[in-house]
């Protein structure tokens, strides 16, 4: 790994002892163990099925081939699944965060009555196991014609993630300096204008974090989409993959290739937003 090759000369206040190197080796070993499953995935995605079954998962491919990828793409409408995932996750991320912004404005700035009770309900929405909602949601989706349409999961997750976002945002807003708001109010700004001209710019970093995380969570979500999106045309990337896996005659290399394809969008997203993500994990942790 390149980690060992990147020493930073400025920060070494003293000479590195053998123990230092041993500890680094330990940390790198853990990193290799964490990365090993990914490496295996890549290794086995470029093999033929026959190669895999004779030489096993640890052997170097006898020939590099894209056979498994073409086979996966012929069985699963991957572009469709990709579109379903991108569309639903984007709508959920932005709409959920917008909803959270409005609600937290009422709770954090407006300080409406029954604040504690509302916070408790938000926590309930975040923690409730989806098993306790799924059967009625299934019937609700059927009754409204949303079953087998991504809009069913869009509605569900906008609300669930907005509840979480509201919890985070309202605690950020409750520490907001009142003088600033009062000054704006004296200048004649109404509530709607104060929200957009005063509050929004200040909570924007938190909103970015929420959008990024909501996007990732929606992309990876498994249980509710599995139940509500039975029709392949409506499936998201992870659900399309797991539906294919259920069919027994599939070569394992094909599923490998499919997994790799399903993983690439998340990986790209992770690399682009890495800084926001590490900031976000912290923001969620503080409150």
């Amino acid at each position, binding site marked *: *790994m390149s980690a060992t090759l990147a020493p930073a000369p400025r920060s070494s206040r003293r000479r590195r002892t053998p123990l230092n190197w041993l500890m680094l080796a330990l940390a790198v070993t*853990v990193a290799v163990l964490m990365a090993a499953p990914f490496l295996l995935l890549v290794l086995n995605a470029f093999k033929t099925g026959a190669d895999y079954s004779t030489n096993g998962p640890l052997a170097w491919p006898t020939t590099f081939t894209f056979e498994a990828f073409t086979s996966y793409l012929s069985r699963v409408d991957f572009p469709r699944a990709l579109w379903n995932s991108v569309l639903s996750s984007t709508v959920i991320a932005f709409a959920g965060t917008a909803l959270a912004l409005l609600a937290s404005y009422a709770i954090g700035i407006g300080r409406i009555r029954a604040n504690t009770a509302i916070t408790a309900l938000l926590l309930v929405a975040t923690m409730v196991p989806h098993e306790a909602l799924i*059967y009625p949601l299934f019937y609700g989706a059927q009754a409204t014609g949303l079953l087998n349409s991504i809009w069913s999961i869009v509605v569900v997750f906008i609300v669930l993630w907005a509840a979480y976002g509201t919890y985070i945002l309202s605690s950020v807003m409750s520490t907001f300096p009142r003088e600033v708001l009062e000054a704006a109010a004296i200048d004649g700004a109404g509530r709607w204008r104060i929200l957009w001209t005063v509050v929004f710019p200040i909570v924007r970093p938190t909103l970015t974090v929420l959008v990024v995380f909501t996007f990732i969570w929606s992309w990876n979500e498994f*249980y509710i989409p599995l139940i509500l999106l039975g029709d392949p045309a409506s499936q998201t990337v992870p659900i399309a*993959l797991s539906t294919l896996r259920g069919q027994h005659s599939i070569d394992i290399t094909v599923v490998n290739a499919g997994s790799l394809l399903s993983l690439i969008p998340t990986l790209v997203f992770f690399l682009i937003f890495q800084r926001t*993500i590490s900031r976000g*994990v912290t923001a969620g942790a503080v409150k």
Partner: protein
Amino acid sequence: MAARLRSPRRSLEHRGAYWLYLLPLAAGFVIVVAAPFAMNVYTSLFHWKGGQAPMRWAGLDNYLTLFTDETFWRSFQNSVAMIVAITVIPTIIGILLAALLFDYLGRRFGDRAIAVLRATYYLPQILPIAVAGFIWSTILNTQQGSLSLMLRSLGIQDPPDWLGDPGIAVYSVMLMLVWLQIGYPVVIFMSALQRVDPELYEAAELDGAGWWRRFQAITIPQIRPEIFVVVLTATIAALKVFAPILILTGGGPENSTVVPSYYAYRSFFELSRVGYGSTIATVMSLVIFIVAAVMLTWQHRETRKEPR
């Protein structure tokens, strides 16, 4: 958290109109959470095969059955195993790794190396569970699995049947969950450590305190709030584990890896015992709410006790 209602001198006009901003979320909450949850509790009072089948009133029958149902108790036992795999082990390893990276290696090998290591640890966290589950089902496969092949090449002739042996399968699932979870505490604890005043460490070092002593006396107490958050969220997640079980073992072999969420799922969609499934889901929700409430109350009391 809960903002106390200070009375801002008739500022910001009257409060009433703020309710409008809460309305969209409140409506969504009723449709997506409250109504379905209430429906679920209602169905738990019936014998019902689902769909068009008639609903027969059962009162608390389902709940009584549940308490004598061996599979149900087994599923909660496995929840404890999930807590060990998601909360206990990753939190402990996470603290050690974070301290190692931040306090020990960071000072000697620079920020770049540390950032790469941290990102690698975090990677499984952003992976779709469908992919993670598939990778591990191939790794843990009996004949062709990477783990068994590696052990054989090390001379162990007869590696265990990781997912097929009822005595071992739950540990195999735990192994995957530890891998999946570790990045989360590492990242949180590392950013928590950034908050700690470096002078504390320097003073302790001057007093001759070794790394382990500083770890105990400074690191742990300073990042207590973050430890609490990690333990709380991880415990809730552990009580909800579903996808890893569905993908890796399907609850088997011989029900040895069944967890409440999976048992509810099977009752709903495979066994056509919708009333019973609703009962499991209701009890499971209650357990989660109670655990969370107890932990939050305890933390609230602890922070108030602390002298400021």
